[in-house]
């Protein structure tokens, strides 16, 4: 167990190192882009450009720049933005993290519960009208783009019906959990639902097809022949073996969302999360922020995969000894 964790931690460090180098190389190798020109603004003179290069260290060899930036990021922890001079990067990321975590974890809880209920019900009632209804609901969920659904939700809850039935919906934006669970959850409720609808649809479909497949397995017939109830057959045998696939899917999606893939939801609902921060930094060509965001995202993807591997071993004894 500890050896496994140790190996994974080492691998994670390698991944993070490789990603930081890649980001750096891509940034400087992007054709037609001169970071100094971006910083200096439009119509800057050659002198200004040279000055900018010097003060930002852009005239140094690329490896020196990499080393300096890593030192500021990890050792001095005072890396500053290119574009917004004086703005430190780490506090920005630290501010964005709880927003994204709140959004994604809450949505994940909703979509996992929804998907479990939908998948199990569709399997239990396959052959009846319930199954196709759930499948169609899932497809609708998958087909609603987040940016569209979010805008519609906002239109309804913030504008059209805000004076009547949705008067309880607070204005857009994030409220920290330290201000109480109620306000925090209320502000995030619609972002959660919007993000969850998409994933609930996908997960319900995957779970249903896995479970229906499992229901044709010999061990299900065996379980029935043992005289145990149909719900127990469904939950303890079919669902339990089908969870393995769902968990691996969840690890990938959850990691990506924490890492910034919830961008659209963040933008629609005015949440200053990691996705928004990464997007803005890319727009501004702000290397220090990009680097910090990408490393943060990679860290969470690696972490999520590590947790999935542990869950895997717990769910499936066959992978335990590998």
């Amino acid at each position, binding site marked *: 167990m500890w050896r496994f964790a140790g190996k994974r931690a080492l691998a994670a460090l390698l991944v993070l190192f490789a990603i930081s180098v890649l980001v750096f190389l891509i940034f400087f190798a992007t054709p037609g882009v001169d970071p100094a020109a971006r910083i200096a603004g439009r119509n800057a003179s050659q002198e200004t450009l040279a000055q900018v290069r010097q003060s930002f260290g852009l005239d140094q060899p690329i490896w020196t720049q990499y080393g300096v930036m890593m030192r500021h990021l990890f050792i001095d922890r005072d890396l500053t933005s290119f574009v917004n001079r004086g703005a430190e990067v780490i506090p920005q990321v630290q501010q964005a993290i709880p927003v994204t975590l709140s959004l994604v974890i809450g949505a994940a809880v909703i979509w996992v519960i929804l998907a479990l209920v939908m998948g199990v019900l569709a399997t239990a009632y396959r052959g009846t009208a319930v199954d196709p209804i759930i499948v169609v609901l899932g497809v609708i969920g998958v087909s609603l783009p987040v940016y569209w659904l979010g805008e519609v939700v906002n239109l309804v809850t913030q504008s059209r019906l805000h004076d009547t039935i949705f008067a309880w919906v607070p204005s857009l934006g994030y409220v920290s959990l330290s201000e109480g669970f109620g306000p925090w959850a209320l502000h995030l409720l619609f972002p959660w639902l919007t993000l969850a609808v998409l994933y609930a649809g996908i997960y319900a479909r995957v779970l249903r097809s896995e479970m229906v497949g499992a229901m044709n397995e010999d*061990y299900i017939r065996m379980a029935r022949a*043992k005289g145990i109830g149909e719900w127990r057959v469904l939950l303890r045998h079919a669902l339990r073996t089908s969870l393995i696939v769902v968990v691996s899917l969840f690890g990938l999606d959850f990691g990506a969302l924490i890492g910034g893939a919830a961008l659209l939801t963040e933008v629609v609902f005015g949440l200053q999360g990691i996705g928004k921060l990464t997007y803005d930094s890319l727009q501004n060509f702000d290397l220090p922020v990009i680097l910090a965001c990408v490393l943060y995202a990679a860290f969470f993807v690696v972490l999520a995969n590590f947790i999935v591997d542990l869950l895997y071993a717990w769910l499936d004894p066959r992978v335990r000894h590998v």
Partner: protein
Amino acid sequence: MSESTAAQPLLDVRDLRVSFRTRSGTVDAVDGISFTVGRGEVLGIVGESGSGKSVSMLSVLGLIDNPNCVVEGEVIFQGEDLLKLDDKELRRIRGKEIAMVFQDPMTALTPVYTAGWHISEQIRAHEKVSKKAAHARAVQLLDAVGIPNATDRVNSYPHEFSGGMRQRVVIAMALSCNPSLLIADEPTTALDVTIQAQILELLRDLQSEFGSSIVLITHDMGVVSQMSDRVLVMYGGRLAEAGPRRALMRDPLHPYTWGLMGSIPPTDGTRVERLAAIPGAPINPSDPDRDRCLFSSRCGFASDACRPQPGLVEHVHGHLDACVLPYDQRPALRLEALTTVTTESGASA
């Protein structure tokens, strides 16, 4: 097994009919079979794939999970018609009174649970015992079915057992509630030959120890001859022949049984170039032409008399078959059948 047990059989199947509605009409997988299983008796059911032997036993326990399946007839078990019970009442019987062992031990256990978990689940489904007590019984059962070091192995997962050991786990699970009837559906087919013999021996030992009746479904006449008291031969969802094992093995009556017996390699020293095979292919159950002896299309002695389906006739005590050939000529005809098959295969070899 004497006939006195048949007076009050444990299981009495009467005119069992299992049909599936398909797009091209109704298909009769089991076409009106009747048989009994006495207390403590081992009944062998033999037949080719698709002869309806598994389906008939699955339908007894209501285990056919197909909405287009219709089961008719009566299945009297300890005075109750199982076909009239709802699912909840059937669950009381399943696993407790009638237990099943399936063909492939590789897939019969849910891969994520230990052997002990599987056995405990079955015990706790029928008896109010603590987890600890169920676990202790699981260890005893695993020990009883010959799993070495049962105290440790009870915590092993299915993939950590070999095929034969896994089938032992399944058998231990099946026996965990002392069922009065054990249905073993090709319990040795998926195992290699040496393991097959061990599992059959185990079943025989357990049968004498626990006194359960066993219905042994197989396509292997050799298995039947080792285990059963009485034998049913099925073809196309109908009974072709039924009788005490000794009589049926010594004097098989039905031409289909002759074919099955001919497929056993002889052990008396004569070496055959090629084992006899029954010509043709098993009857397609969706064939609409059913008002005839279904074997007649593959039978060397078929005539117009094979239409309509001849009824089951008892020739000697307890030995029945459904064939129109004159009873007293059967031994001669059987010899003829054997020689024809041999010359045919000799010519083609």
